[in-house]
């Protein structure tokens, strides 16, 4: 039996050659997750990676763990079966915006609704990469792609909004080029009891390059993004002088030191509040774009309910074997 728990990221690398395009954020995601796994303090045979179809979904082949490379859109459903079958496994769903928000939308929302302990890593590049450049359900209106040469006419989903609407208990957003932020968030997502969704803003260098540069470019990212942490005021900006306040039913950006605003006026992030209203407002903001763990509300998970109920039924049932049914 393997008792070694002290792993390094290398213990999670498979012998398969990684075949993503050079410069793709997927490399950052892979490495960040491989670095996060040793911090989760679990034997490596307890991790299962389940994916669908798309660039992101090649992921399990690059991990030295148990994994299933499934079919398009069905990763969440397959993973639900794995997890229900064995709640001792740490199950990751590796998916993309096409995989989970288009063809697999149904499984995606129902996984969130059920609150089963899965960790869903959603690679959102706002494009279909593996089929070489068609618009996805997160592509912007007007975006020119191979199937929208004159511009996309379909309004996009905001994954966070969709997720919270589907009663997601955990939602985090992180930039695809932020290795450190990702590692931290993956560890938090794994520690969270319930369905944890992490949206990674993943830049596709080939078909949608620069989709996130307004928020991820080194020069501007501090001004255009807010990285929230539970219990801390929502302050951002290069000089840490900007923050969010609630102005009526709107979130508003203010500058500390101007118009009598002090740090005490800034909203303090409460990721654990079951009421999703403020979380919904946060995921909808575009400037600043809110990153970090936006929502983390632990409840009894589906598998906990299942196990509890089964134990109750067992305690009072005379049926211990098939033979008892027919006797």
């Amino acid at each position, binding site marked *: 039996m393997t008792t070694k728990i002290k792993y390094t990221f290398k213990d999670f690398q498979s012998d398969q050659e990684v075949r993503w395009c050079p410069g793709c954020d997927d490399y950052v995601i892979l490495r960040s997750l491989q670095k996060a796994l040793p911090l989760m303090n679990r034997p490596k045979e307890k991790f299962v990676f389940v994916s669908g179809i798309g660039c992101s979904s090649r992921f399990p082949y690059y991990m030295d763990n148990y994994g299933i490379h*499934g*079919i398009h859109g069905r990763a969440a459903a397959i993973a639900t*079966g794995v997890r229900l079958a064995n709640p001792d496994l740490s199950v990751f769903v590796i998916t993309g915006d096409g995989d989970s928000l288009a063809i697999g939308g149904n499984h995606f929302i129902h996984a969130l609704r059920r609150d089963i302990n899965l960790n869903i890593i959603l690679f959102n590049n706002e494009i279909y990469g593996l089929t070489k450049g068609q618009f996805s359900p997160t592509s912007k209106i007007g975006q020119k792609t191979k199937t929208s040469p004159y511009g996309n006419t379909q309004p996009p989903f905001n994954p966070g909004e969709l997720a919270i609407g589907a009663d997601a208990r955990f939602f985090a957003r992180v930039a695809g080029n932020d290795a450190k932020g990702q590692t931290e968030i993956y560890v938090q997502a794994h520690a969270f009891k319930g369905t944890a969704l992490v949206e990674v803003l993943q830049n596709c260098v080939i078909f949608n390059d620069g989709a996130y540069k307004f928020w991820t470019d080194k020069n501007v990212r501090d001004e255009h993004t807010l990285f929230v942490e539970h219990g801390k005021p929502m302050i951002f900006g290069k000089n840490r002088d900007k923050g969010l306040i609630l102005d009526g039913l709107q979130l508003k950006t203010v500058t500390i030191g101007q118009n009598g605003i002090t740090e005490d006026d800034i909203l303090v992030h409460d990721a654990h509040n079951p009421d999703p209203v403020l979380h919904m407002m946060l995921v909808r903001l575009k400037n600043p774009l809110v990153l970090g763990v936006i929502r983390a509300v632990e409840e009894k998970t589906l598998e906990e309910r299942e196990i509890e109920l089964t134990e109750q039924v067992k305690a009072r049932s005379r049926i*211990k074997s098939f033979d008892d049914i027919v006797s």
Partner: protein
Amino acid sequence: MTTEFKKRTDKPVRHLDQVTIRFAGDSGDGMQLTGTQFTTSAAMLGNDVFTFPNYPAEIRAPQGSLYGVSGFQVQIGAKNIDTPGDKLDLLVAMNPAALKKNLKDLKKGGMLIVDTDAFNKINLQKAKYESNPLEDGSLKDYLVVQVPMTSLTREALKDIPIDSKSKTRSKNMFALGMVYFLYGKDPKYTVEFLRKKFKNKPDIVEANIKALQTGWNYAETLELLPAFVVDEAPHHAKEYKIITGNTATAWGFLAAAEKAGLKLFLGSYPITPATDILQELSKYRALDVIAFQAEDEIAGISSAIGAAFAGKLAITTTSGPGLALKSEALGLAVMLEIPLVVVDVQRGGPSTGLPTKTEQADLMQALFGRNGESPAVILAAKSPADAFKMAFEASKIALEHMTPVILLTDGYIGNGSEPWTVQRLKDLPEIKPPLLKEPVENWKPYHRDPETLARKWVIPGTPGLEHVIGGLEKDKETGAISYEPENHEYMVKIRQAKVDKIAGFIPPLETEFQSEGELLVVGWGGTYGALRTAVGQLNEKGKKVGLAHFNHINPLPKGVEKVFEKFDKIIVAELNLGQFANYLRMKHPEFRYEQYNKIQGLPFTVEELVKAFEKLLK
């Protein structure tokens, strides 16, 4: 409250070998319950039985309407019974619509019991009768027993403090009481049942029992009513239960899981007529069964694939439209080479088709309804009780050969019931899945057992054997992605060969009645009872007719050609346009196949089969 039922005394008794009865009424009239109760009593009292419920897709169609008619047919016998019977000896019609829809199935001279209270102007109009059939002489060929059932029931229950609607609703027990009297069946099992079912509603118990008694007593007073007896059938010495095919299917899986030392996982989505299996398995948390009601058909099979990967006996249950939705995932299971059982309780198609009616038209879909070269094992159950055996066998094959298996049943045997001889775990064969629990040197995920060609089943959580499987073509040993042309051809062929080899693990084809002769009747799946009865009748007439009925469709059992060549003619009878016949033409083109086909959403009648087969005989 007294529950004494007067003994039948002074009437002369006629002994019958078998009798076919149908209870028909509004879908809210409780006809399924009435029929089930009669069946249970008859079986408990020693008859062989076979039932066939025939109900509309509408849950509560407008009262009195033709499309709201629900029927329950049962044949009881003093000898072996394999079908619910063709023509009715007795029809109980609770309203004009029920009469209109069912009269054509009543034998000339057969008995008809009607509730005259329901034959009012409105109901007659709803049933599209221009004149009242009870008065216009159109029923002169039948023995008509006119009973004001509703008013007699209401009168009998007048002192019981329940609402008026509940009183009227008890009329099905009145009808049942009459039928019990007619066939001399002690109503004690129904009394027991009512006491248990309504144990917290003593007034309802009293009302139902009173209605039952009133019906019984009323029957005794009717001069024209004969008294019949259907004696005990000989096979009833053994321990048995009356179960539907869907329940038998569910139980087969329960037994298989325990026999294999595994827990059962069902991923499913409600669909008629397969839902009963999901409902049945939902009851067995005590056996650690996970019956997961998924968000759709695709999630049903996908979750089962996940559960199979994680070490469960994993199954998914559906009907034709659901199988269509599952086909991509089924291809994944073929590619992953994991154990999985898919049950298709077939119904009339295409598209939504006839959800509550039976058909055998999903055979080609099961065989070939996937992209690529995607062989799956196909089995078919031949009767309600046989569904237990086949669900068990489907599990055994899936687990021991690491392959998806499709088990075809149909609405007729899924909802139909017959006695199932009780089997316990000790009576069933061993199931030994090829689990690998400890690392072995040089193990690779797609190493195969030379005898079965099955790969090892390695469950996540096993240290040192981490591996990834997926839907992309894989290297023949390591399972890593491979686009090599020769490797792909090798893998396609070996997946096929693995399924083909299963023919060596199943019983060879056998015939019943004759092993050589003038005509061989070939069937598969749920038509067995009718075919067997028809071929039996022809043999009684001295005809040399054999029956070859297939449980195993892919692969076919061994010995097909040896059986077929002994007969002058072969006729394939099935409830579709000839799918199995065409499959046999592909697999055994050396024979000529006649066909008998029916696509009416109904099972075969014995009469039509005998007629069709006789045409081919000299």
